[in-house]
């Protein structure tokens, strides 16, 4: 949409002419304050990530100067970021794809068929979400140690899939329940198998919730390093979130360097969000009502 069409829009013109009442002024003040309060830490980190530690140590953080790009280059090299970004991709991509694949299948059966176990299964999936992950750390650690899967990406991926499938199944089954029954009935009459109904009828309609869940799952799995730190022991297999720890010394931490690293680590989730933003917003509300 171009700016020209925006100004021609009658509604917008009305909004522009709307009188500034005291309540409106108050609203704007409130909204601006909240926005600044939320954005300030991020901008502060971004600002200081471009500054030299020696300068801020001498002059304090409330100062202007000492600008440099070195923090980014140093963070990338010292934090071993190239390798760790790759590790995060190795963990996140299969985990998200398999989670979504499994949960669409589970949700399809739970939502579209009437088995006696549908409700108990759905309760189980939802209840398992409430289980604190930490409670399972020791049994899982021992199990993986017994089968020799410690220090192996697979252990982290499998645990992520197991924990995330419940939530995704819950959301997807709500969405699929809202799809008209007649869609699959018509396919059934035409002789479509269950697989075909799932793969060719229902799944293409789930694009919006899948995008929404995709964004959430990528963010959660990418940001997690609890399981990675629990199961991986080789420093060069850790995900990028632990790369930030690489930028901290045993005692001394260059906080400007750490800010530069944090900004870089945050970029992929922001990119994913903006790419899928449209579907994300519509996907969040799509399952909410039974249309």
């Amino acid at each position: 949409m171009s700016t020209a069409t925006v100004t021609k829009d009658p509604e917008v013109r009305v909004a522009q002419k709307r009188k500034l009442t005291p309540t409106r002024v108050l609203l704007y003040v409130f909204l601006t304050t909240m926005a600044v309060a939320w954005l300030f830490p991020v901008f502060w980190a971004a600002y200081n990530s471009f500054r030299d530690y020696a300068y801020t140590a001498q002059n304090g953080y409330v100062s202007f100067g000492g600008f440099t790009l070195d923090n980014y280059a140093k963070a990338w090299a010292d934090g071993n970021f190239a390798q760790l970004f790759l590790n995060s991709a190795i963990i996140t991509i299969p985990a998200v794809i398999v989670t979504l694949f499994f949960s669409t299948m589970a949700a399809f059966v739970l939502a579209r068929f009437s088995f006696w176990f549908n409700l108990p299964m759905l309760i189980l999936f939802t209840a398992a979400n409430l289980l604190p992950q930490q409670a399972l750390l020791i049994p899982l650690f021992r199990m993986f140690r017994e089968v020799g899967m410690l220090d192996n990406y697979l252990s982290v991926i499998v645990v992520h899939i197991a924990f995330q499938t419940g939530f995704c199944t819950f959301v997807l089954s709500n969405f699929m329940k809202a799809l008209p029954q007649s869609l699959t009935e018509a396919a059934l009459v035409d002789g479509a198998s269950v697989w075909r109904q799932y793969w060719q009828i229902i799944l293409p309609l789930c694009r919006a919730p899948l995008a929404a869940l995709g964004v959430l799952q990528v963010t959660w799995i990418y940001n997690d390093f609890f399981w990675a730190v629990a199961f991986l022991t080789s420093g060069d297999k850790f995900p990028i979130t632990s790369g930030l720890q690489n930028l901290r010394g045993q005692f001394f931490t260059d906080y400007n360097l750490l800010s530069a690293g944090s900004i870089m680590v945050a970029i992929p989730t922001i990119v994913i969000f903006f790419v899928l933003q449209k579907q994300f917003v519509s996907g969040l509300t799509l399952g909410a009502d039974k249309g």
Partner: protein
Amino acid sequence: MPRPPGKMPSPTALRRSSGGLRTPLSRRTLLRGGASLAGLAGLSACGAPDPNAVRYGSRSTEAIPKEAFDNVFAAFKAETGLTVDVNATDPNTYQEQINSYLQGNPDDVFAWFAGFRARFFEDVGLAAPMTHIWDEVGDNFTDAFRTACQNEAGQEIVLPFYYYPWAVFYRPSVFEANGYSIPENLSDFESLCEDMQDTGLNPIAFGAADGWPQMGTFDYLNMRINGYDFHIELMAGQQRWDSEEVKAVFEQWKDLLPYHQEGALGRTWQEAAQSLQQGESGMYVLGLFVNQQFAEGEDREDLDFFNFPEFNPSIGAGAVEAPIDGFMLRNDPENPEGADELLRFLASAQAQQIYVDTDPQIAANVETDTSGYDPLQIKSAELVANADNISQFMDRDTRPDFAATVAIPELQRFLANPEAITDITSSMQAQAESIFG
């Protein structure tokens, strides 16, 4: 067609009526799935141990220590032909993870600390004694180092590499400008603090937000007031925390607190060091690593330290806090000969020299050439060489669970409310009893 009520029949019902479902998965899809699973499994690199390689678990991921170790291992390869496979984890994760790391498949040689904190892993059989290495290289280290590296049975379990002392740091330029002199004893120290307050300087920089820096102050006060032996016994759970001796330490600390920077609980050590750097504070009790806060060159050259002063002439100031970092040997290593070779090399003056050339620590090996040291390194080496006893810092001299779950919160409670000494000491004693058993 009228819409039937309810959902579709279940597949089993369908099968009954129509005589079976078609296979939902085609062969191609199955093969594709299988291939991707195999690819996943392939992500785990597994192989037989290489006889020409030694696996080393490192906690050095920062640029300078990493480069220093790379240089050491390059020299090791040139000397012996053995490669070192370095598995580097950042120091914070490494320390948090050490338990699960050692229970999994640890590296043959791994970085750790001397003192009480090493003994636990040897006790439970995760690390092995290295008396056979010490028999060969023991002359390279002082007796104080040997003691710090032994288990309770007197076997050596750690190989020391480098150390850094704790002391009272100051800016020589500030001392010179104001005509201050180095305090030798408590009364000198107190009058120096008062002089500083008179000139508008905050006498002692102090940050306790990290939890551990204040342990250094406690350790020194305890060693100066009650002596080294009492301190070590207290750390080992053999003395009482609610004793008059410990209370005297807290009382003394309470008297000195007005000279400390206010609001310490909300300040990290780096922020406290910054106040020394910017000339707002006069002194700071911390480890040598404080110099990392100061930019190399002029800023760092204007930094010096003196030994923590004597509080009681009959006890003196001979005990110095100098944590030693070193290596431990995994129990049942994959390449025992290679691991021994590596430990022997790391103990040598040659290896320690290569390391400290890049990372300005102080080498543990007494034969190391000190000509390349900067003034602070030389002074540190002298301080420790002349020390009667060396302590390792509270979180290494006592059980880690006591240090983390009892000492940190209780010391912070003391700083928040210095009047509650009796309450704090009896609470620490009760918790010590339950931890040490």
